[in-house]
């Protein structure tokens, strides 16, 4: 079980308090009327699925209820950092302070 630092609650809580919400930074097509099948298909179904650092969304359902983003290494499952929704993806080489 992961110990996940919630960037809103500023505390690390066990994984069962959270719900995983898929890859982060997957942007919905800005102009749905004109976006073609390929664009929709990319948005809906195609994922990076990296072996290494992934940016993913979590929701602290049994806590503050808010969505946030997380950088995690999918080989070791180590969480490098978490950051609030809307913030840009941090550089994984220079992770900011965790374990709040």
């Amino acid at each position, binding site marked *: *079980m992961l110990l996940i630092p919630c960037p809103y609650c500023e505390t690390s809580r066990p994984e069962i308090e959270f719900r*995983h919400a898929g890859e982060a930074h997957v942007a919905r097509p800005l102009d749905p009327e004109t976006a073609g099948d*390929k664009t929709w298909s990319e948005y809906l179904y195609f994922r990076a*699925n990296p*072996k290494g650092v992934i940016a993913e969304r979590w929701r602290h359902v049994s806590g503050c209820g808010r969505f946030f983003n997380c950088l995690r290494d999918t080989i070791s499952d180590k969480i490098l950092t978490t950051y609030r929704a809307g913030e840009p993806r941090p550089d994984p080489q220079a992770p900011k302070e965790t374990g709040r």
Partner: protein
Amino acid sequence: MRFSFLNVARQALAGNQGWPEQWRSPEPKAAYDAIIVGAGGHGLATAYYMAKEHGLTNIAVVEKGWLGGGNTGRNTTIIRSNYLWEESQAIYEHALKLWEGLSEELNYNVMYSARGVMMLAHNAHDVQVFKRHVHANRLAGIDNEWISPEEAKAFCPILNISRTIRYPIVGAALQRRGGTARHDAVAWGYARGASGRGVDIIQNCEVTGIRRDPSGAVAGLETTRGFVATKKVGIVAAGHTSVLMGMAGVRMPLESYPLQALVSEPIKPIMPCVVMSNTIHAYMSQSDKGELVIGAGTDAYTSYSQTGGLHIATHTLDAICELFPNVRRMRMLRNWGGIVDVTPDRSPIIGKTPVPGLFVNCGWGTGGFKATPGSGHVFAHTVAKGEPHPIAAPFSLDRFRTGRLIDEAAAAAVAH
């Protein structure tokens, strides 16, 4: 050397010293007509049928670890074909029919045992869904029947059908032709069959790159044992498919999750069949060694760690203890994880890719073992002919653009 009564007797008299290696371990050649990446059950079956049915013998299977060491050696060996949609029924039933004759076909005992797969219903929704499956299957000529809790208990006497448990059993769907097989033997049997027909199986050979010619077509594979030229590559790499396809610049509609299984200490036979419960996330069977083989669910997050969370296994064991109260005090011997590649519609992807010469067979998610012979058979046709086998055609990568999904998520919301 064939396995026959005469040879077994001869070898017994000679102290069993004369059995040859079951497959060769050759050095990679400079070039092959086709290369399959991944020596699991599906990859080896593909190579076997390419050699046997399509006359392609100048081919290789490359494997980064050892043969059958990925999900083939980690699954819970359940075989069934009671899927909802016609496309799925066609491919899983194709596989089930091949299972029925596989030991004879390979001259290798894969220990296929049609002991019956029973899927438990615990609520009104389950009843509706399973009855729909039963009807769909019977229309397609696939055996599947609806039985009462009492009939379920008669079929599996250790089942707890009390009305007072948290999720009482209200009925079950039973596929009598479903069952189990020996997972390692499947990989070994196909490896032996393929190697005997001239296929090179190259273990400890990790693919590090896919080289392409100026037109964009596949020209060969960079591996840890050097460059090997080929014009056709079939990727059969389960959880690592996204990584390999990324080497050719192709993104996939896949996410890789850890899926767990565990086995108990071995005991005398107590369980004559396979019992599954999608609703309370548990399934169990008993191996011929006597171990209870228990499958848990996937973790919530993508990972390549081959380790699942303890709370996932605990959740499954809670359900097992309620369904089978007499196993409550048993010890679990081993617990492991495999990395499964899950598609959005929980159906596999078998076919061509945007890169000429590159084919893919993936997305079997949590339930690929049952399809091993059928998957290999139709993928061999697809790679050999360059066009999808009719049974494989609906499972194209293109369906995620056209929207013609084959949604088996209802049947496979958990590991199956």
